[in-house]
């Protein structure tokens, strides 16, 4: 910002700053407070949470809710499935979408406009429209209830292609022109020149896809029937079905299911937020 604008912000009395921080603290409390409550409740007994007025700190820090969660559902295996699902989808999309994006952005071929319009039309279709036949395809491939069923459709993305194409289009063309005049074929150009430059875009797409795959509920719910083949989100939903209003166990389950992502987020917050911001600016 310029000096004048900065001066303006300094002109604002401290009262404004206090008001602002009050609002920000309140917002942070509302947005992050429930997690603290979740954490505290997960260590209480069912009897304790049924007390009015509620206690803040647990009278006794029980681990029994956590053992109940692991006894109810194979959370360890679910964690594994969820991780594989997220990584497979993300890895595949990063590779395939960047290739397709490069194709659309930098290769002029007959029918390019029509094909891209077709890709765009996929964006409009809500996923629920596709699940029944997608399920049918997985079934006919004999892959129901197997790990690959979770990520197979998710390896292909029109959104990822669109996002990265926008990004490629914004890159200056002369690097690539130079390489082409040097006799490099498109694959070399893609691999050695465009991809390194595409790092911000790839990170953004990668983060979004990781997050979305990790939290996906509808598709794993439909396509995996065995609790040992399904993901954490489905596990959590069925824990809800089993433990209905036994909140301490439910809180423990929620914490187990979401803690990995929260920790990963806190460690990589800068990249995550940059990535998300990037998608907004490129759209």
């Amino acid at each position, binding site marked *: 910002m310029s000096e004048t604008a900065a001066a303006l912000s300094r002109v604002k009395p401290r009262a404004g700053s206090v008001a602002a921080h009050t609002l920000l603290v309140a917002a942070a409390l509302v947005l992050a407070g429930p997690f603290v409550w979740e954490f505290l409740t997960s260590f209480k007994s069912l009897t304790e949470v049924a007390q009015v007025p509620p206690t803040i700190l647990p009278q006794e820090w029980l681990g029994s809710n956590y053992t109940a969660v692991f006894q109810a559902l194979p959370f360890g295996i679910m964690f594994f499935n969820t991780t594989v699902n997220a990584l497979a989808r993300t890895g595949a999309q990063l590779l395939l979408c960047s290739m397709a994006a490069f194709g659309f952005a930098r290769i002029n071929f007959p029918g390019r406009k029509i094909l891209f319009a077709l890709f765009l039309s996929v964006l409009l279709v809500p996923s629920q429209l596709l699940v029944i036949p997608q399920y049918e395809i997985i079934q006919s491939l004999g892959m*129901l209830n*197997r790990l*690959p069923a979770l990520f197979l459709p998710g390896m292909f993305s029109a959104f990822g292609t669109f996002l990265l194409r926008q990004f490629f289009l914004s890159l200056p063309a002369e690097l690539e022109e130079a390489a082409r005049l040097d006799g490099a074929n498109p694959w070399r150009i893609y691999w050695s020149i465009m991809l390194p430059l595409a790092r911000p875009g790839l990170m953004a797409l990668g983060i979004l896809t990781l997050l979305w795959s990790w939290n996906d509920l509808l598709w794993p719910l439909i396509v995996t029937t065995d609790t040992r083949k399904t993901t954490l989100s489905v596990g959590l939903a069925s824990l809800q079905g089993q433990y209905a209003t036994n909140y301490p166990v439910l809180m423990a389950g929620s914490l187990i299911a979401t803690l990995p992502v929260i920790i990963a987020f806190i460690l990589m917050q800068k990249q995550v937020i940059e990535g998300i911001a990037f998608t907004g600016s490129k759209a």
Partner: protein
Amino acid sequence: MRNRLLALGLAIVVAAVAGCSSGTQSSSSQSSGQGEKVTLTYGIWDKNQVPAMKKIASAFTESQPNVSVSVQVTPFDSYFTKLQAAATGGQAPDVFWLNGPNFQLYASNGVLQEVKVDAANYPAPLVNLYQFNGKQYGVPKDFDTIGLWYNKKLFDAAKVDYPTADWKWADVQAAAKKLTDPDKGVFGIGAPPAGQENFYNTVFQAGGFVISPDGKRSGYDDPKTIAGLKFWTDLVQAHYSPSMQQMTDTLPLQMFEAGKLAMLYSGSWNATEFAKNTNTKNSVDVAQLPAGDKKATVIHGLGNVVFAKGPHTAEAAAFAEFLGSKQAADIQASTGTVIPAFNGTQQAWVQAFPQYHLQNFLDEVSYAVPFPISKNTAVWNGYETDELTKAWSGSESVEQAAQNLAAKMNEALAKESK
């Protein structure tokens, strides 16, 4: 960084696709010749029964060493959705649990394989429950009846006598009134719109019916049936039971365990649950259901069935029939989780929790009514939920809701016979 990232992506894709085609899963089995190793999958929904089921599976493998059984648990609320999908795709477990409401759907669509059952070994209603078109498709596994569970401490505090086998509806209503203490948030009785545990029983006790014996007509517009429903809505309206909203927010079972409900109609299956819970371990007991115009309780039981399109139907049928043997029944009884269906094996269950008068559940069998089902029970069960919830929450009168329900149910039943 970019190189590594993409290499990682490629590696994962390759590994995944490779994992597609290869890989022995616990459910896969080689083509069975004589004596070749076979692994059967056994689908169940109650994690509490896993130890018992695994014991039975090992006992079976002892007698047939080339067959091993893998027990698969799917939580109940998604069990049937998943099962139908799996059966459609030819991937259902080799042997699995069915309950009454779903049995005819599977039997009538050729999903199940016939089994051999010695009818003399089980209560007749249970054997009949798993027959279709004169053929036996299910092996009775266990049964349950409904009893009046009550909190002794709350009864003592309100100076109300414990329920006896002679209680009638009026006794329940009077007791509920005395036991309700709004200041403490305690209600006399829990009255959720649950069929098996609550209103089916009172409908039968009032002389009404849910579905006609030929399966073509709904009983909900019958005045006696409506009287059976009113028993519960009256309790809710009088505030001797928590409101519909409150019971959605916190389940009656939890309220009972927390000591907020003095009485709760619930199944024999809760004996294990109550015995585990420190609050209810020694402070609750159970009595037979009070009579309306007559005594009645709903009897229901699970059946073990064989998937007709599985790769090893012979071994699967052998396992299913073993599940109905006395040996299997004894194992079930010893864990105390369910009442086995095999005649004469139930005493072990009764003795599993001596602090409760569990014999009451067995005594009820003599006047028990079979669980109401039809070819596509799930459809009108859904209507029951939709319509009766309105009566319970007071947005519609019981009469109106019951009439609407009967109309919808008759429509659905008409579609079944097409």
